[in-house]
């Protein structure tokens, strides 16, 4: 912008500056209500100026989630892409990314029998939910996977109602929803979730919220979303300079206390179920089946997540603070039965990691824990990459 040299500060009218600036601000607000701003998440420095992230960031914008990830880089001709799906245990909570399962498998020099390099991508996202995983798998299809490895546990399938906390309210004034969708990544993308459950004929009650209001699309209405996007892009500077991705940015008040020091209630309760019942009645296996039968998906290998097993006296009735024996034993038997009946590629690793290799929860492994899982799972993945003779 060039300013006339004859003009002086005396010509500037303060009231006109405020008025024009205010009008311009209104115009910018309205510009954001146009469709282009809904795709801001695709504008990224990652995979261009700096390398893509080795695992998902904390953004709830699905476009940004993928465009910032290393998986968004172009697929090479000799690459066999394996996508690890799951929750925080697979994401690598409290672990440096170089200690995670995905990184260990990716750098193990594995090759398929046809000589392709196995590239393993961490597409897990914290919180156990089969529906959340299906949303991510559907999006991940654009990045040409050759194999999905889907880590699950009983809590990936349960769907008890959950209320928003006072200090962590759900968006859109939602007060209570099912556990499958009770976190921002899903609740902030309800339109996409709605299309997905329609596509796969999944019966799931979504909260009725107005997601299409013009106000919500303006700059003011999107301010949290824009701040979120900006934060992810600004973080690229730190990532590009240091390549540090420590896995400690997640919120958990108990992160610093080892699971072995946390108390376990000596009761039979599993969430709101106070005594043994048929656990399959409380599992959303229909969501699981929808993913396994999805048209056009590559093969899916299902892995039952390893978990901490207590050696305290309470072990008589509970495995840990999350699962009583009655619920988890039923779940394991059900998964095994169904995998045999339906021919799923299923690997049950529930007790493969010794209890001293869990960190702050019954599912978060330490670096050695992930190494143990990597050693056990690598041969099975290789087997799946080669066609049967």
């Amino acid at each position, binding site marked *: 912008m060039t*300013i006339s040299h004859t*003009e002086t500060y005396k010509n500037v009218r303060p009231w006109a500056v405020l008025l024009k600036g205010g009008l311009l601000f209104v115009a910018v607000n309205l510009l954001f209500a146009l469709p282009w701003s809904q795709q801001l998440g695709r504008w990224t420095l990652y995979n261009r100026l700096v390398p893509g992230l080795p695992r998902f960031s*904390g953004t709830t914008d699905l476009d940004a989630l993928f465009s910032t990830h290393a998986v968004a880089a172009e697929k090479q001709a000799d690459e066999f892409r394996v996508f690890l799906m799951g929750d*925080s245990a697979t994401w690598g909570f409290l672990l440096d990314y170089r200690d995670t399962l995905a990184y260990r498998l990716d750098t193990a020099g594995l090759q398929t029998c046809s000589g392709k390099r196995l590239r393993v991508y961490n597409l897990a996202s914290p919180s156990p939910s089969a529906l959340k995983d299906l949303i991510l798998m559907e999006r991940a299809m654009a990045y040409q996977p050759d194999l999905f490895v889907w880590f699950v546990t009983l809590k990936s399938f349960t769907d008890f109602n959950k209320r928003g906390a006072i200090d962590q309210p759900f*968006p859109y004034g939602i007060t209570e929803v099912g556990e499958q969708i009770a976190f921002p990544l899903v609740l902030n993308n309800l339109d996409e979730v709605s299309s997905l459950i329609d596509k796969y004929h999944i019966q799931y009650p979504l909260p009725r919220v107005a997601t299409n209001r013009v106000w919500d699309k303006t700059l003011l209405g999107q*301010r949290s979303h824009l701040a*979120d996007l900006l*934060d992810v892009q600004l973080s690229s500077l730190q990532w590009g300079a240091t390549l540090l991705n420590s896995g400690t940015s997640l919120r958990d008040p108990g992160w610093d206390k080892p699971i072995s020091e946390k108390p376990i209630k000596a009761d039979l309760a599993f969430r709101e179920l106070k005594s043994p019942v048929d656990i399959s009645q409380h599992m959303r296996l229909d969501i699981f089946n929808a993913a396994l039968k999805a048209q056009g998906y590559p093969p899916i290998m299902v892995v039952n997540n390893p978990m901490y097993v207590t050696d305290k006296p309470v072990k008589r009735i509970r495995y840990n603070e999350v699962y009583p024996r009655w619920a988890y034993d039923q779940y394991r038997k059900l998964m095994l039965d169904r995998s045999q009946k339906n021919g799923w590629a299923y690997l049950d690793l529930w007790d493969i990691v010794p209890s001293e290799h869990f960190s702050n929860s019954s599912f978060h492994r330490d670096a050695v824990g992930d190494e143990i899982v990597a050693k056990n799972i690598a041969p099975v993945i290789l087997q799946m990459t080669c066609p049967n003779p």
Partner: protein
Amino acid sequence: MKKVLSKIFTLENLYALIFCLILVALVIFTANYKDSWFLYEGF
């Protein structure tokens, strides 16, 4: 054309643009968004 441009590119309009950008920055940088980061609860 030159006349139109000299009316648009004035010091007053530059200040108005800066004022608008300050408002935009204030709106974005004061937004509460961290609460919507991964909520991880006692898994």
